């Protein structure tokens, strides 16, 4: 009976009970739901479940296999840690939205057909926007609207692609969909773009940096785990080995680095960092070899943990201080030493220092790129690795908790539930780094990779330590980019400034055109009236009364002319 329920449905159904509960029972319920949902997942063997008949189409709501299980496991861990982190929140809206969001993402990762995927896709979009709106500010409302338009737009594109694909092939199975091509494979191409929107491909990425920093302190932790990683899963399922993903992913790793270096809002820095990390996964999926796909899956797993940990640490600052702007912070480590410690663990993990989770996962993708002779991509990824150290390894902990001066902020340490969630996340980051075998065991393909070779450890340390040395040298010479209160214009300027400006200009042009047409019409009408007035007005020619003698003279002249004509024509 339980196998007919899709994984994640326990969270969605359980969320509906949350508004009825208060205090400790509610906290216990919020923490129990991910555990119950996880137990439900473990009860499912590999295979397809929940076959539904929709018109004459059979849907396969659930498909359990090794690829989907990687995402299923980590999504449940993330749901539990995020729920623990948010346990102090009294607002009923947030936990309901968060649980539905997490449940929909989990169900999406197990969708066996494209219609089920579409439903989950849209449900994640609609539920997650409430985590942004829950900030209840004008900024968050506007950012949420932009987020919703783009996310729902992605869903609409997905549905259009699915329908075209179905009409072409007669299949709704969510398996490998072929290579994107507008001319030969339109349906899957639209699906590919829909996935790309949610995965924050270059030029489609700004919803991420726009919306995530506007969500609540706890909401961003949920957001960081599910939306983009569901898209990564969808790409791995539908488009593994698509060559186009390699340059796209490489670009994703590199360009956010140049924005992260400038950003003052540390949660926005992490949003750019998230974009950069997604790039590594996308490259792995594009390469498509067993090692590369293992690299993408394991990186997604590790990334969800350390990115959540970093967002948690910034959320703790936001919760206590009320801001995460680097210019406002300084020496906060004195007040929040445990949060500082956990943040540094997250920073070491994302930077891929040996003995931390990023080291044992990201290196698989790099090795796969080199083995596949993706030469330029390999060096771009290497460059991006140094970039990660800059914005997430150094900038986040340094400006979040140390800085150049004491800002005089004295606050209490983060609440116990936040600390516990950060502590467990940090433990997992180290555990995976020290002993990666359990993670390797759940990957889609057998792992033939040894991360802890002397060469690998030494070269990675050389890269990172010398990048750290560059930071120190530049800081001593006062050459590092200073933190400034500012807005850095990204591609979203196109739809936040340029398009509205064009619409306004076109509108005013149309207005001027309309005014011109009306004015010309008025002038023409005025002219006609004047002419008519001239002819038929009170003193017009036609209305003028003539003397009878004049009329007789005219008639005589006309008769004379007629007589003359007849005479001449005889």
């Amino acid at each position, binding site marked *: 009976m339980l196998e007919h329920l899709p994984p994640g449905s326990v969270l969605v159904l359980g969320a509906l009970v949350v508004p009825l509960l208060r205090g400790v029972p509610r906290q216990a319920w919020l923490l129990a739901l991910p555990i119950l949902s996880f137990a439900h997942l473990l009860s499912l063997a590999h295979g397809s479940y929940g076959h539904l008949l929709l018109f004459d189409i059979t849907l396969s709501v659930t498909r359990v296999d090794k690829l989907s299980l990687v995402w299923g496991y980590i999504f449940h861990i993330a749901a539990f840690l995020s729920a623990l982190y*948010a346990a102090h929140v*009294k607002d009923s809206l*947030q936990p309901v939205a968060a649980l539905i969001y997490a449940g929909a993402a989990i169900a999406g990762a197990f969708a066996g057909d494209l219609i089920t995927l579409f439903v989950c896709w849209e449900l994640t979009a609609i539920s997650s926007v409430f985590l942004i709106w*829950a*900030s*209840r*500010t*004008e*900024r*968050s409302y*506007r*950012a949420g609207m932009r987020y919703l338009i783009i996310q729902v737009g992605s869903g609409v594109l997905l549905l259009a692609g699915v329908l075209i694909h179905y009409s072409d092939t007669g299949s709704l199975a969510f398996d490998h969909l072929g290579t994107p091509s507008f001319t030969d494979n339109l349906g899957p191409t639209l699906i590919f773009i829909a996935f790309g929107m949610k995965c924050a491909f270059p030029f489609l990425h700004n919803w991420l940096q726009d919306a995530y920093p*506007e969500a*609540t*302190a*706890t909401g961003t932790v949920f957001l960081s785990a599910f939306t983009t990683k569901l898209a990564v899963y969808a790409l791995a399922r539908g488009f593994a080995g698509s060559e186009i993903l390699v340059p796209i992913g490489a670009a994703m790793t590199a360009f956010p680095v*140049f*924005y992260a*270096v*400038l950003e003052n809002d540390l949660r926005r820095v992490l949003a750019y960092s998230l974009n950069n990390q997604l790039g590594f996964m996308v490259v792995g999926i594009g390469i498509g070899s067993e090692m590369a796909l293992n690299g993408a899956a394991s990186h997604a797993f590790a990334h969800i943990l350390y990115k959540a940990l970093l967002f948690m640490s910034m959320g703790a600052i936001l*919760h*206590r*201080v*009320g*801001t995460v702007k680097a210019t406002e912070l300084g*020496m906060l480590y*004195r007040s929040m030493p445990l949060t500082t410690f956990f943040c540094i663990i997250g920073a070491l993990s994302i930077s891929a220092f040996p003995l931390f989770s990023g080291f044992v996962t990201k290196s698989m993708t790099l090795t796969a790129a*080199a083995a596949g002779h993706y*030469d330029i991509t*390999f060096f771009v990824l*290497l*460059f991006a690795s*140094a*970039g990660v*150290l*800059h914005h997430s390894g150094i900038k986040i902990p340094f400006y979040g908790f*140390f800085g150049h001066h004491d800002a*005089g902020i*004295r*606050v209490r340490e983060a609440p116990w539930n936040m600390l516990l969630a950060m502590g467990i996340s940090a433990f997992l980051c180290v555990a995976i780094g020290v002993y990666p075998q359990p993670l390797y065991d759940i990957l889609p393909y057998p792992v033939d990779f040894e991360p802890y*070779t002397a*060469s690998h450890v*030494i*070269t990675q340390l*050389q*890269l990172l*330590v*010398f*990048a*750290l*040395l*560059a930071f*120190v040298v530049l800081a001593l010479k006062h*050459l590092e*980019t200073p933190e*400034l*209160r500012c*807005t*850095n*214009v990204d591609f979203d300027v196109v739809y936040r400034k340029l398009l509205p400006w064009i619409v306004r200009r076109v509108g005013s042009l149309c207005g001027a055109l309309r005014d011109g047409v009306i004015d010309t019409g008025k002038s023409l009408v005025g002219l006609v009236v004047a002419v008519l007035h001239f002819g038929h007005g009170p003193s017009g020619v036609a209305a003028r009364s003539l003397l009878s003698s004049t009329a007789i003279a005219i008639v005589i002249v006309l008769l004379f002319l007629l007589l003359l004509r007849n005479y001449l024509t005889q």
Partner: protein
Amino acid sequence: MADQDNTTPTPWIERASSVTLLVRLLFVVSACLFVPDVLDVLHIGYDKHVHYGAESWLGFYAVFGFIAYSFIVGAGWIWRSIVMRDEGFYGNGDEEGDDA
């Protein structure tokens, strides 16, 4: 919520002497990390596993890391001059939210 506390002594990590010590330690660690590459070039006890010829150059990863980081910072200065605008550029107000 926030108040100034001037009574506590300067913590160890904030002292100038500590920062100097840490910087020197970093220089020493960096120098030590060069040693394996020298051993690799001399074929003594360490063999660097490489995919590309450039990787086998002496100190390739160290130099790459240093230059890449410096490039990012340098490019940041230039990029900032192009993309930086006022904080209220999008005109959405400046308030930040938190949990209820």
